[in-house]
Every structure is written in C-alpha cells, then in structure tokens.
C-alpha cells in the first residue's frame, strides 16, 4: 500500500517534471536575421528555459535542411515558390523586416547626402555609368562637387539573400537590368568586383576610391558607413531611416499575398525606402517533433510581442506590423497539424 503511494508520487512527480522539462528546438538558415534570432533565443531561454539552437548557414542551406527535416525550422531571406512549399509541406511566414542600402567612398561626400535613383544604380552595375561626374548623377546633386573618378561597383561574391533583394529592386526599376542580368541570390555581374559578406563589401568600398556597394542596413548603421539617398516610387528622395522602412512594410499588401510573400520592394508610400524586404521562416505543416514545433511557434509569437520587438529594434530590424502578426498566428492554428489532424498550437 505504502509502496503504491510512493510509486504514484514518483509517477506524478515525473509527469510534472516532464511537462516542465526544457524543450530545445533547432533552426538553420539565413545569416541576415541570425543576430536577432540569437538575441531572442537568449532572452527566451532566460524566461522559459527552452533553448533555441540557430545555425546561420545561408538561406539556401536553410531551405535544404527543412526540406530534409533535419531541423525544426528553416530560415530564408528569399521567398520559396508556392509549388515548392506545397510539395515540401511547409508554412512560410515573415519574422522581421530588413533593408538594403547603398554605401559609397567619395571624397567630400557625407552620409545621407548623395542622391541616386534606382535607374542610376542599375546603370552603374551594368557598366553604363563609369564616372562619378556623369551627367545623370551631377544633375541630381548640384550642391555636391563630384570628382571625375571611375565608379567601381562592388557586390557580394557569396550568394546571399541581400543580393537577391538588391537585384530584385534593380529588376523593378530597370527593364535593361531585368533582361540582361535578372535577380537571384547570386548573378552574373557585368562589371565590378566581388567581396565576401557584408564586411568584405564594406572593406572593398573603403579601400577603393570611387567605390560603391550595397549592404544590409543593420550592418551600415552599426559601422557608420557613408550611405546614399534613393528616389522612391513616389518620386521623393529619401535617406535610409527606420520610419521609411516601416512605411514600406505597412504599405505592402499582406492580405492579398500568398504564403506571406508580400513585396515591399519599391513601395508606393510617400516616404518609403525602396529596398525593403521581410525575412522568412519555414515550418513543417506535418511536424515530426510536435513539442519542438509547438515551441517554435510559441517562440515566434513571443518574439512578435513588445518585448521581442524591442530587442529587434535595438539591433535595427523592423518588427512586423500588428495585423500581419495576427495573420501569422491564425496560419499557425490552421495549418500546423499533428498526424491525427489536431492543431499543434
């Protein structure tokens, strides 16, 4: 009798311990959101005891790993096509929004002063504009004395989501670019030099007089790079600032977009920064590890709260608009199911 009670007590204790036991969940993919995922992960572990292991291996790697189900979630900057999502049984949802800026190395040019347009950027990277005192640039910048120096375009040599976003923008603003080069995580650049990673592009631009490159905004602001203004779709010249990224994010058509693949490149809003894009997470709709899948969803729902948003903003990421968060939560409940068809969350 006594023994049974004792056993019962142990069983109850084990059960309780079981429910309170830490659930570790694994993610892999894009390097662009890695800093914020890791900061979120650290804070989340402090709060709940559940640890996130995130490996920053690149968007392509993230897609590969989640298709093979070797991780609990994959992360990708590039949108996965609908057919591929369907065949791999994945739910795609955005987490934070990032932006890409242009950085230059020109004597006497201060940050956020030089005005460029998308068409000029495309012509620079097509090799059509080769001097900084080209009429197209001087016309926009009557107050800046531009040298008769060679323009040296610098690009990311490693294939990256940043390149996909940047070339996606050039595709939008230049028909010539679209037909000659196109958009992908790496492309065949007609001119210029390639450097590895944001730090490689920054270093090469800094080394090269007359250099121009593109980097993620979080990287540019953390390193105080000389960035340029860009003309947006509304025709206004805007400097890369958080308000402009938010305006672009808010103007995107999230409701109409399938798989949350809302485009905010060259957004029409009055003060929108033109090169803005969300980064995505891919979650299996038929999770093998139900616990980890539930924890992943809980984690991101927490990350969308005020507490998570503050961490993201401190690292210069733009949190998602509130109505998009609601859509994501609905998608979680409707789409992620256990084998017997019940919602995981």
């Amino acid at each position, binding site marked *: 009798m006594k023994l049974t009670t004792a056993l019962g007590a142990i069983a109850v204790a084990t059960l309780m311990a079981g429910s309170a036991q830490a659930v570790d969940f694994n993610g892999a993919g894009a390097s662009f959101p890695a800093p914020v995922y890791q900061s979120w992960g650290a804070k989340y572990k402090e709060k709940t005891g559940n640890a996130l292991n995130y490996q920053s291996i690149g968007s392509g790697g993230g897609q590969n790993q989640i298709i093979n189900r070797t991780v609990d979630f994959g992360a990708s900057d590039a949108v996965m096509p609908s057919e591929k999502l369907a065949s791999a049984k994945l739910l795609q949802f955005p987490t934070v929004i990032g932006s890409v800026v242009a950085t230059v190395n020109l004597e006497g040019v201060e940050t956020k002063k030089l005005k460029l347009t998308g068409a000029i950027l495309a012509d620079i990277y097509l090799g059509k504009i080769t001097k900084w005192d080209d009429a197209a640039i001087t016309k926009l910048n009557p107050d800046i004395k531009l040298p008769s120096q060679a323009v040296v375009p610098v690009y990311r*040599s*490693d294939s990256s989501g940043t390149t996909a976003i940047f070339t996606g923008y050039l595709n939008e603003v230049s028909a010539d670019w679209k037909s000659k080069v196109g958009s992908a*995580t*790496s492309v*065949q650049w007609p001119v210029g030099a390639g450097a590895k990673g944001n730090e490689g592009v920054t270093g090469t631009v800094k*080394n090269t007089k007359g250099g121009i490159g593109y980097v993620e905004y979080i990287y540019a602001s953390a390193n105080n790079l000389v960035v340029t203004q860009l003309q947006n779709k509304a025709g206004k010249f805007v400097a890369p600032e958080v308000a402009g990224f938010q305006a672009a994010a808010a103007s995107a058509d999230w409701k109409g977009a399938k798989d949350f693949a809302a485009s905010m490149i060259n957004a029409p809003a009055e003060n929108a920064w033109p090169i803005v894009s969300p980064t995505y997470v891919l979650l299996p709709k038929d999770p093998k590890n139900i616990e980890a899948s539930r924890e992943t969803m809980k984690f991101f729902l927490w990350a969308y709260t005020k507490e998570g948003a503050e961490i993201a903003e401190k690292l210069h990421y733009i949190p998602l608009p509130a109505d998009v968060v609601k859509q994501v939560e609905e998608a979680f409940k409707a789409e992620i199911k256990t084998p017997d068809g019940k919602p995981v969350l």
Partner: protein
Amino acid sequence: MDATMDTRGGGQIEPITKAKATGAVSDPIFIALLWASGIFVLLLLGLIIAQLFMGGLPALQHFGLDFIWTANWNPVTENYGALVMIYGTLFSAVIAVVVALPLSFGIAFFLTEICPQAFKRPIGVAVQLLAAVPSIIYGMWGFFVIVPLMAAYVQPPLIETLGQVPILGLLFSGPPLGSGMLTAGLILAVMILPFITAMFVETLESVPPMLKESAYGVGGTTYEVYKNVSIPYGRTAMVGAIMLGLGRALGETMAVTFVIGNATRLSASLFAPGATIASTIANEFPEAPIGSLKLTSLLQLGFILFVISFIVLALSRALVRSRLD
C-alpha cells in the same frame, strides 16, 4: 644494462626450446593491418573521385562537354560553364609559382651555403612557421593589408605606364581595385613558399660536399657552383617540389576568395577580378539547393579541379622519372 637483466632473470638463461613462436599469429595480423591501411587510402580516393563524378554527372549531361570551355556562369538563367574558373585557377597558380620560385631558390641556397650557423635556425623556423599560418589568416592579411597597398601604390603607376603599351598593356589594364589575379597570385606565392623552400633545402643538403668542393677547387664562383653543380644534382627533386607547390596553389580556397575579386568574367589583365574553381565553390555552395543544376555544376567543378591536380601530379612524376633515366 646487461647486469640488470641478468639479475631479473635470476641469473639463469632459459633454454631456447621453451620460447614460443609468437610471430606465427601476430605477424600475419600485423601484415593484414598494413594491407588494410594501404587499401584504405586507395579506396577512399576512389570513392571521393566517384562521388564527385556522379554528383557532377547531371551538369555534364545537361551542358555536355561544352561545360568545360564555356565562359559563362549565370545563376539566373541557370547557365553554367567552367572556363573562367579553370583559367583563373591555372593563371593564379602560375603567377604564384613564378613569384615563389626565385625566392625559394634564394632562401634555400642562402640557408645551405651562405648563412652563418647562428642565423640558420631562426630563418629556417621562420620559413616553417609561414607554412603553419592558417589560410584564413593569409586571406585577412591579404584583404586588409595587401589589397589596399596594391590599389594605392602598385596598380595605378603600372596602369599608367605599362598599361599604355599596346598588347602588353592588356596585362595591366582595368581599374585599380587592389584585388584581382595578381594579388591572389602574390598571396599564393607566400603560401607555397615554405613548401618549395623546405624541399629545396633538403635537396641542396644532399649534394655531396665533395662535388661542391671540387667545383670550388677548380675556381668556380659561388654562383657557378650553385648553377652548375647543386641545381643539376637536385634537379629532379626540385621539379617535384615546384609541382607540389603548384598543386597546393591550385586548390587553395579561403585566402584566394578574399583577394581575387570574385568575378565570373574572362580577362587577360593581371589586375582584373577573377575566380578560381575553389573560390567559386566556397562562394556558391551555401546557396545551392539540393538537386539543383547549380549544385551539380559545382560538384562537376570539383571533379575538374581533381583532374587538374591529378594531371599536375602525374606530370611531375613523369618529369622526375625522365630525368632519372
């Protein structure tokens, strides 16, 4: 020593008939293990080659043999060719050997003939330490130190002077980016220098002193002895050393990726950014989805690099052998 053994054995020597033939069992086992080790290497190499070839086969089937001489690498249109990378790999490796060779000759001869004993060790160790520096460090050093130096002081004057000469000027044309073929070749030269030097030193030290002394005795200068005695004596081994250096330069990845400029365009200029097979694989691999044409093309590139390395090695063997005959 003998005394101790005697005491341990109690002063008595055991009769030989009691000894066991332990080797009868252990020796075959040992020999079998040795065989296994040898076969293992062959098997491993064979499997790697087979795996690379099978992995790259879809690319070869898709593009045909044109893959090898197409100067196109376009991930957007999924059109891939290996010519730019093959050219970049060979070009940068040849620059490296051309730069490293005279230096290695100089260091090796200095160490074996001229150097006072007191300096011999420090210089020898310094050369060996060059080999111990991880390649990523060379990459960072190249990127942060050599590339700005090239862009500021080396390339602009060369472009303005030699770059204006017809035909030869092609080698020195283009904007002074700092990165490019020449910079990659220079970094590679520093990286292969210790290997070539070490083998040269070994070769020169094996030259019989009598030969050298005789040469000095008939009135040869230091240079003449080096040129007519030491080098001919060690020529075969030296060719082997150069080929090994070349082999290492062909496959170097990280350091090259940092400084070569990573452009998939064909250019004759020493200053133009280019790409090698290894740097392209390092750059593109993370974003190459499983089953994509890009991944198979990268594997095919890997196979081509393997073949190039194999040819270089075979060539060095053949050269060495022909000299021996």
